[in-house]
């Protein structure tokens, strides 16, 4: 068969869903459904059910009504964990978004050396959070790390021992890990902006900065929303990075919700309360995802290219 050669044919009718000759192929979806229900849907219902029980992780699961919820909601650790999560989400968003946009715009240029830069930029994307956390933990050593190496004494702080500094380090390392990813998304989006818009702006005498604010940024609106959704919703699940880097410390300074859930469940053996935190995480995640969709005007497919 010479199917490969037809790969470039334009989709003739996009109304593919209506084309079929009567037979249902639904059974093909069954294997995926089984897996997803078993380890996606059931756990999702399970986390809600477990939040109404008491369980130490080994013995019997005992239904206990609202006991776990009461304990969770009256624990001062919860508002603290929420506050830390909020700070990490907001600060890392504030740092990552402008950086990623600027880098993405720059990398979208066609110069050869930029492609070379991009190869190096994207390396952090390949590393596991555990590897990144371990590296920074050692690199930030006050005696044998960064400060000594660069001869800059102000970099020789007890980075992971001071609550405020530790939070800053978490935000920085998160950004170090994810800025490449978001730059990559922006790079792709910038390349899709029609060149004609810039040519028109140039004829009208708009300078580079003006072009950036009047063309690039508005054209990137949907991408900004997508990228922000991923950043913010993703920041709810930063677990491995923070767990390895600070283990939530010093004290509780970097104990985000996901970490709070893990420690409550698997270290304090309070699975019921940990499940309640899990439910909160799911709800916050869903709420944020919906909020961002609203911001995007709901319809993702609507064209941004009006006036192009």
């Amino acid at each position, binding site marked *: 068969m010479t199917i490969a050669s037809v790969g470039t044919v334009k989709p003739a009718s996009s109304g593919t869903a209506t*084309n079929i000759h009567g037979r249902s*192929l639904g059974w093909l979806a069954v*294997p995926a459904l089984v897996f*997803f229900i078993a380890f996606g849907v059931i756990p999702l219902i399970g986390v809600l059910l477990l939040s109404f029980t008491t*369980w130490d992780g080994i013995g019997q699961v005992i239904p206990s009504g609202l006991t776990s919820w009461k304990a969770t909601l009256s624990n001062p650790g919860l508002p603290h964990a929420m506050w830390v999560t909020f700070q990490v989400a907001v600060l890392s968003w504030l740092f990552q978004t402008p950086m990623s946009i600027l880098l993405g715009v720059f990398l979208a240029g066609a110069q050869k050396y930029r492609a070379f830069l991009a*190869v*190096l930029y994207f390396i952090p994307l390949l590393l596991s959070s555990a590897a990144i956390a371990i590296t920074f*933990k050692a690199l930030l050593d006050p005696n044998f790390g960064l400060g000594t*190496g660069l001869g800059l004494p102000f970099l020789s702080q007890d980075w992971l021992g001071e609550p405020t500094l530790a939070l800053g380090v978490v935000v920085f390392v998160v950004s170090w890990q994810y800025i490449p990813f978001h730059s990559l998304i922006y790079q792709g989006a910038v390349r899709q902006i029609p060149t004609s818009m810039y040519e028109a702006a140039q004829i009208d005498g708009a300078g580079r900065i003006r072009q950036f604010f009047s063309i690039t940024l508005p054209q990137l609106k949907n991408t900004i929303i997508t990228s922000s959704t991923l950043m913010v919703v993703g920041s709810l699940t930063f677990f491995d990075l923070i767990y390895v880097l600070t283990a939530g410390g010093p004290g509780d300074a970097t104990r985000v919700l996901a970490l709070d859930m893990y420690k409550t469940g698997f270290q304090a053996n309070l699975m019921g309360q940990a*499940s309640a935190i899990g439910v909160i995480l799911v709800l916050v995640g869903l709420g944020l995802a919906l909020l961002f969709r609203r911001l995007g005007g709901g319809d993702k497919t609507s064209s941004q290219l009006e006036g192009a």
Partner: protein
Amino acid sequence: MADTAAPTKRIRNPNWVGGALSWVWLFIVILPIYWIVITSIKSQSEYFVTNPFAPPEQPTLDAYRLVIDSGIVRYFVNSVIVTVGAVVPAVLVSFMAAFAIIRSRPNRFVRSSNSLFLMGLAIPLQATIIPVYLIIIRLHLYDTLLALILPSIAFAIPLSVLVLSNFIRDVPNELFESMRLDGCSEWQTLWRLALPLTRPALVTVTIYNALGIWNGFLLPLVLTQSPDLRVLPLALWTFQGQYGINVPAVLAAVLMSVLPILALYVVGRRQLLSGLTAGFSK
């Protein structure tokens, strides 16, 4: 891949801000990586006396020897088993599901499975780790590699189905029709038409999932216990706990855990990068 002509030469005066920023950020990205490499070939005593960013005076592979002796090969094999064992079935079942969603006569079953998968995209599945743990215990799978594989498959399905169904939707209907006129069953069409035509998307989805599972930490942390069953990220973490003071060895372990992916990156950079942004460009 909607591509307008590459936006070259659009402006005469260069982008100073972006340029300066990108060199600064390059430095910030490269410095730790450079440091990992040079420190991993220092001896432990040299680490304490030389400048952290100076290359070693007497390079040594002692750190690597220690890491290999501590059983990294075992962990490497575990990671390969889990990654391959999860990615292959995940992509396969997702592909079949995507085909069903696009090609089947629309009915309630297909529609509701589709919305179920879409829902999975919006939910941080890690938040359900406690019931996953309970299920794994009840299935008597605790502390096995299969315990890591099964949830990994499930977690990979939503995005894979989304990306693949977007791609299958773009296959021209005429091709399916002609297959049918040739007397092929839908099952044959699935393998002989849809599969080859969606190859780029399959590669993308495979890479995306493989990277996520290779680097995964939470599932192994919660669902396994034996040292023999550690996967690389978990092994790194325990290794750091044991040899924390021996920074060159810890960094050698970090580097060795990354090496296979770095090698892949050198070979298939384009695919890897498009794989990473799977589903966000559409």
